[in-house]
């Protein structure tokens, strides 16, 4: 026979379908991925020049190592990997589909002779009786068999776990689904951030890569921000923000978000990510005019003078949340009507009566203090994320099916052999053969027992 020469297209196709290419690509992805874990990603030019020098920086830029996971060559490998997955599935899927569409109901003699799991014995029943008994048993112990009569012989075929043949395809498909979801998220979504001071609102966020602010199409207001700390430490325990979504001035959604619990509106998610102080703390101060006993309350910002009756004024100059063991304390001074600074003194929040003893014109008490914060929000829009989750579900489901289940098939052939019936058994599993061997031996024993028992003690 003349060897037909493979065309270029054929050999390309074979190459794209090949397992070898898959292994090479997977190892190549593993190897190249290391680069981005060693070289800083998306840093500033100055960072690279300081760390690696000017010439290396130029080289990195040329090789796209600065943002290598989005570089054309890395995307290229991923692209080729997808093509490989698709081609290999197209090539092999029809073969697997045939197991479903055309199960081998009638096993050839080759199956009975060549299977790793096979048995042969005789029984006294007619082949129809034996077929019935074996069917019953298979139905109970394995799976419901299909009976076929051909050439004066009876054939039984039973199978289990055919879906496991699809496990690998589901896994491969799910990788493509995840990649598709990631692409959708990258093209139609964005990642941004915004800082909102308590009591203020915004309708724009700043993208993480880029300078042009993004319009949200609605307004977000931060009503309140709170941070709580673990006792006796400055480890934050929780921080959360009361957010309000406004459209056309109407409040639409209220939610208190915290780390691990974002707010979602119109596909845009707001994550609690950071916080910081927005301006100086202010203090609620109760002032008593000692002569008259008249009481007034004032809000004071640190360092700002506040007018008092009679031309006096005061200013809070310092504050601490814990003054030794006495708790929150502020330092302040009083200005006389002619503008002269008085001596500074301290007022403790937990000991409001103390300042009366000082004996000035006014006595002060600290009612509370408040630190205005801004809340730092990550803002993300990712229309592909549910596709990614679907892919993730399938990849777990698919890999479990592919590894832990196998397609098991059992064939039986019953044939008249003089007064007796000859029984041929064969079994096959496409994975975990040793495990199936044990199950097959067990089943074979049961089948032999069943046919022999009834022949001995009928209806026993």
């Amino acid at each position, binding site marked *: 026979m003349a060897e037909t020469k493979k065309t270029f297209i054929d050999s390309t196709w074979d190459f794209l379908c090949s*397992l*070898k290419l*898959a*292994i090479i690509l*997977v*190892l190549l*992805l*593993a190897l190249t*991925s*290391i680069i*981005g*874990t*060693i070289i800083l*990603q998306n840093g500033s030019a100055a960072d690279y020049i300081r760390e690696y020098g000017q010439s290396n920086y130029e080289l990195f830029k040329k090789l796209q190592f600065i943002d290598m*996971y989005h570089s054309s060559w890395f995307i290229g490998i991923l692209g080729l990997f997808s093509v490989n997955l698709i081609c290999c599935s197209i090539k092999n899927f029809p073969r697997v589909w045939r197991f479903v569409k055309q199960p081998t109901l009638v096993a050839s003699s080759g199956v009975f002779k060549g299977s790793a799991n096979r048995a042969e014995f005789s029984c006294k029943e007619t082949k129809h009786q034996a077929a019935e008994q074996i069917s019953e048993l298979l139905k109970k112990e394995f799976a419901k068999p299909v009976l076929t009569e051909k050439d004066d012989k009876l054939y039984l075929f039973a199978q289990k776990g055919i879906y496991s043949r699809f496990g690998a395809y589901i896994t491969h498909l799910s990788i493509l689904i995840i990649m598709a979801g*990631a692409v959708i998220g990258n093209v139609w979504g964005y*990642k941004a951030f915004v800082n909102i001071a308590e009591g203020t609102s915004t309708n724009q966020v700043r993208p993480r890569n880029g300078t042009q602010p993004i319009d949200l199409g609605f307004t977000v207001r931060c009503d309140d921000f709170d941070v709580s700390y*673990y006792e006796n*430490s400055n*480890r*934050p*325990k*929780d*921080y959360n923000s009361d957010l309000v979504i406004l459209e056309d001035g109407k409040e639409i959604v209220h939610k208190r978000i*915290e*780390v*691990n*619990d*974002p707010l979602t509106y119109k596909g845009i*998610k707001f*994550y*609690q*990510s950071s916080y910081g102080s927005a301006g100086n703390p202010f203090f609620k101060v109760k002032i008593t005019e000692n002569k008259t006993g008249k009481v007034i309350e004032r809000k004071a910002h640190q360092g700002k003078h506040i007018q008092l009756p009679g031309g006096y004024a005061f200013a809070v100059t310092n504050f601490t949340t814990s003054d030794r063991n006495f708790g929150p304390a502020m330092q302040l001074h009083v200005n006389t009507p002619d503008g002269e600074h008085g001596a500074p003194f301290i007022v403790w929040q937990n000991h409001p009566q103390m300042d009366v003893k000082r004996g000035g014109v006014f006595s002060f008490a600290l009612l509370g203090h408040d630190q205005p914060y801004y809340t730092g929000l*990550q*803002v*993300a829009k*990712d229309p592909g*994320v549910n596709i*990614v*989750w679907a892919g*993730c579900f399938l*990849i*777990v489901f698919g*890999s*479990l099916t592919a*590894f*832990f289940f196998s397609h098991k098939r059992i064939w039986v052939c019953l044939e008249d052999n003089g007064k007796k019936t000859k029984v041929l058994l064969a079994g096959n599993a496409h994975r975990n053969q*040793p495990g199936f061997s044990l199950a097959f031996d067990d089943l074979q024993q049961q089948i032999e027992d069943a046919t022999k028992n009834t022949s001995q003690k009928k209806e026993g």
Partner: protein
Amino acid sequence: MDSGQLFNLTTIAYFAAMVLFFAFIATKNNTVALTATLSSLAGFVIQTVALGMRWYESYQILGVDGRAPLTNLYESVVFFAWSILLIYLLMDWKYKQRTIGAFVLPIALFSMLWAQMSLHSSIDPLVPALQSNWLTYHVITCFLGYAGFAFAFGVSIMYLMKIGKEEKHQGDAPMKGILGLFPPTRVLDDMNYKAIMIGFPLLTLGIVTGAAWAYYAWGTYWSWDPKETWSLIVWFLYAAFLHARFTRGWVGRRAAWLSIIGFAATVFCYLGVNLVLSGLHSYGSG
């Protein structure tokens, strides 16, 4: 008795088990082998109790902020040892190959020693990002996966030790000496594959739960941070391993080497990234 003391007992049990497994290889005495297995089982039971107790202690110390003991480097190293024993005991139950203990127990013992001697074991409250149920699922699945790979690593070492001698070995008589006691290389190769088959879907689930958690905490399910990237590298390596088995010439020696490289990458993903590189997973280094 507190969990720390129980963990010390666990360490002693694993040490005893390891010594007994070595003694078994030297003496070929089956009673020694059984004692070794029982010792590792005892250690595992004590460690299980200790983990439960540490969980309980976290509620005593932190009140309502108590949590599963899976949140810092110390706790993860301890849980790693526990996972290895779980996989080992399951494999021992199935294959009844006692020599393997001598190659798997040292990994668990070393983890326990390291955790007990030089890691920070205090029960500290969690920073907000870690207060998530996803953390628990993420850590459990990842470490069970890692344990599967650790087992595969031990078996691969045995395979490489034995294969050279077995190939030179003539005749049907069983091999003599220590290597004769090892399971046949065919079995070792199969166990290597089985262990990775268990580890791989678990690692997949670990990466997925990690992605889900990252999505709820930071707004991105994947940000190519070094830890994430390394877990993907490990995933790629074992994916290559699993597919290589379908092609001729990639079973046996090469598979054993791939399994060893895979485990080295796993260890780097787990520890190297925290100790050498930096990223979002900085919690683990505490």
